[in-house]
C-alpha cells in the first residue's frame, strides 16, 4: 500500500478504490489491458495493482514501439548503416535493441557511424551538415512519432536535402488491438486506451472495439488517479451493460485527434500490406511505409534491404509479455539472465517496456505474484 502512503491525493484515491471494489460483481474476475508504455510505468511506479481489488487485473499490451520491432528489422538497419558513406540515426531507445547480429551499439563498436538523435529534425540537420554522406533516420513509434517523421520528410523535400532518407518502421495501434482481440490466448473485459497516441488519432478509431467486440475502452491520462478513474469508468460501463468509447483524458485528447498531424502522415506515408510485430507475428495493414511520391527519401528504395527474419531467442518470452499473456515476472529469464544491463528481449531494453518498468520499480507484493501464478 505504498501508493496510499505516498500519493498526494491519497484520500481521493482511497475513495475511488472503494467505489471500484463496490462495482465488482461478486465472484467475477476482470481483466483490463493498457496499450501504452506510459500507463505501464504509472501502474508499476505507484503499485496500482496492489491497490486495486483482487478481482481486477491489469495486463500490459504491445504499447512500447521499441519492443515490437522484430530482430530482422534491426539487422536490416545495421545492414544499411554498414554501407559506404552512411550515417544512421535513431532515438536513444533503439541503441541497445538486439538484432540477430547484435545491436546498433555493437555495430557502432565495429565502426559504423550510428548516432543517437532526439528528433528526426536533428537527423535532417546532420544531413545538411554532411552533404557527402547519406543520412538515414530509423523511424520507429506509433502515431505519436509518425507525424514528426512525416513533417521532417516534408521539410527535407522543401529544402532539397536529397541525402536524407527514412527507414520507416512506424506502426499503427488499431490493428494491434484488433489482433489481440482476435487472439484466442487472452480474454479481456476492456481497454485502457493510450493517451498520447489518441492525441493524434482521436477517439473515433476505437469505436469498433465497442461496436464489434462489445468491449468498453476508456482513453486515459497518466496520473495514478487517471488510471483508477479509467478502471472505474470501465467497471461502470460493464455494470450498466454498456460498451462505449469514453475519453477520461479530454483535457488533452480531442475527440477528433490532431487533423494536421494525420494529414502529414497520409501525405508522406501509406499502409504496408503487412508488417511483422515481435510477439504478435504478421499483422495486415499495421505499419506505415513511405509512399512513392517520397521515394527519394525512402531508405527501402535507396538501399538493398536483406529483409531476413530472425527468430527470438528460445529463452525469451517477450511475445507472451507483449500480448499480455504473461506478466513480466512470469517470464523464465526475467531478472536472472535478462536484466536492463544485459537484456535478452526488447521488453527489457526500452525504458518504456513492461519488463524494464517492472524491474526498475520492483513494486510487487509476493502475494500478488503467488496469486497471478495460480491463475
Amino acid at each position, binding site marked *: 500500500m505504498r501508493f496510499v502512503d505516498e500519493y498526494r491525493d491519497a484520500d481521493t484515491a482511497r475513495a475511488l478504490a472503494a467505489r471500484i471494489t463496490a462495482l465488482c460483481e461478486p465472484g467475477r474476475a476482470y481483466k483490463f489491458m493498457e496499450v501504452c508504455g506510459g500507463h505501464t510505468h504509472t501502474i508499476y511506479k505507484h503499485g496500482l495493482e496492489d491497490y486495486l481489488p483482487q478481482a481486477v487485473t491489469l495486463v500490459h499490451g504491445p504499447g512500447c514501439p521499441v519492443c515490437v520491432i522484430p530482430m530482422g528489422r534491426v539487422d536490416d538497419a545495421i545492414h544499411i548503416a554498414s554501407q559506404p558513406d552512411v550515417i544512421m540515426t535513431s*532515438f536513444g531507445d533503439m541503441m541497445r535493441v538486439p538484432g540477430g547480429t547484435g545491436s546498433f551499439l555493437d555495430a557502432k563498436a565495429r565502426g559504423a557511424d550510428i548516432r543517437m538523435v532526439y*528528433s528526426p529534425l536533428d537527423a535532417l*540537420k546532420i544531413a545538411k551538415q554532411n552533404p557527402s554522406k547519406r543520412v538515414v533516420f530509423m523511424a520507429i513509434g506509433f502515431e505519436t512519432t509518425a507525424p514528426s517523421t512525416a*513533417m521532417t520528410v516534408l521539410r527535407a523535400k522543401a529544402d532539397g536535402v536529397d541525402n536524407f532518407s527514412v527507414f520507416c518502421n512506424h506502426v499503427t495501434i488499431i490493428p494491434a488491438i484488433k489482433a489481440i482481440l482476435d487472439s484466442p490466448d487472452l480474454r479481456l473485459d476492456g481497454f485502457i486506451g493510450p493517451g498520447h497516441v489518441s492525441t493524434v488519432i482521436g477517439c473515433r478509431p476505437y469505436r469498433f472495439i465497442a461496436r464489434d467486440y462489445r468491449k468498453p475502452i476508456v482513453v486515459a491520462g497518466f*496520473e495514478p488517479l487517471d488510471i483508477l478513474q479509467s478502471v472505474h469508468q470501465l467497471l461502470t460501463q460493464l455494470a450498466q451493460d454498456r460498451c462505449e468509447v469514453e475519453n477520461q483524458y479530454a483535457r488533452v485528447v480531442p475527440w477528433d485527434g*490532431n487533423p494536421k498531424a494525420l494529414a502529414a502522415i497520409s501525405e508522406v506515408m501509406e499502409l504496408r500490406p503487412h508488417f511483422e510485430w515481435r510477439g504478435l507475428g504478421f499483422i495486415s495493414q499495421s505499419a506505415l511505409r513511405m509512399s512513392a511520391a517520397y521515394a527519394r527519401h525512402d531508405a527501402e528504395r535507396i538501399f538493398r534491404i536483406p529483409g531476413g527474419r530472425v527468430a527470438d531467442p528460445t529463452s525469451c518470452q517477450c511475445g507472451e509479455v507483449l500480448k499480455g499473456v504473461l506478466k513480466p515476472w512470469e517470464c523464465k529469464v526475467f531478472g536472472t539472465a535478462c536484466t536492463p544491463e544485459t537484456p535478452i528481449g526488447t521488453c527489457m531494453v526500452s525504458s518504456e517496456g513492461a519488463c524494464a518498468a517492472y524491474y526498475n520499480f520492483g513494486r510487487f507484493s509476493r502475494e500478488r505474484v503467488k496469486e497471478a501464478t495460480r491463475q
Partner: protein
Amino acid sequence: MCLGIPGEIVEILNDHPDLAMVAVSGVRRAINIGLLENETVAPGDWILIHVGFALSKIDETEAKAALDFLESIGQAYDDEIAALRESMIEQG
C-alpha cells in the same frame, strides 16, 4: 521517445513561423509548432512535445501534472531530457 513532455513557450521565432523557443525542465530549445491545429501560441503558453514537435496545447495545471508524472518515472525522463539537451533543431 514516446513520452510527451510539457514545455513553456519562451519566444516565437518570427523569422521561422514553424518554430518556437521552448523551456523544458530548464533546457531551452527550438521546437516545431507546425502541427498545432488552428491554435495560436504565445510566450507563457504550455505545449506537449513529442520528439521535437508540439502535438497539443495544454493548460498550466495539466503541464504541472504531466511534469509530476515524468519526474516520478525517473530514468526514462532523464534520458529524454539528456537527449533534448543534445538536440540542435536548426532555426531555418
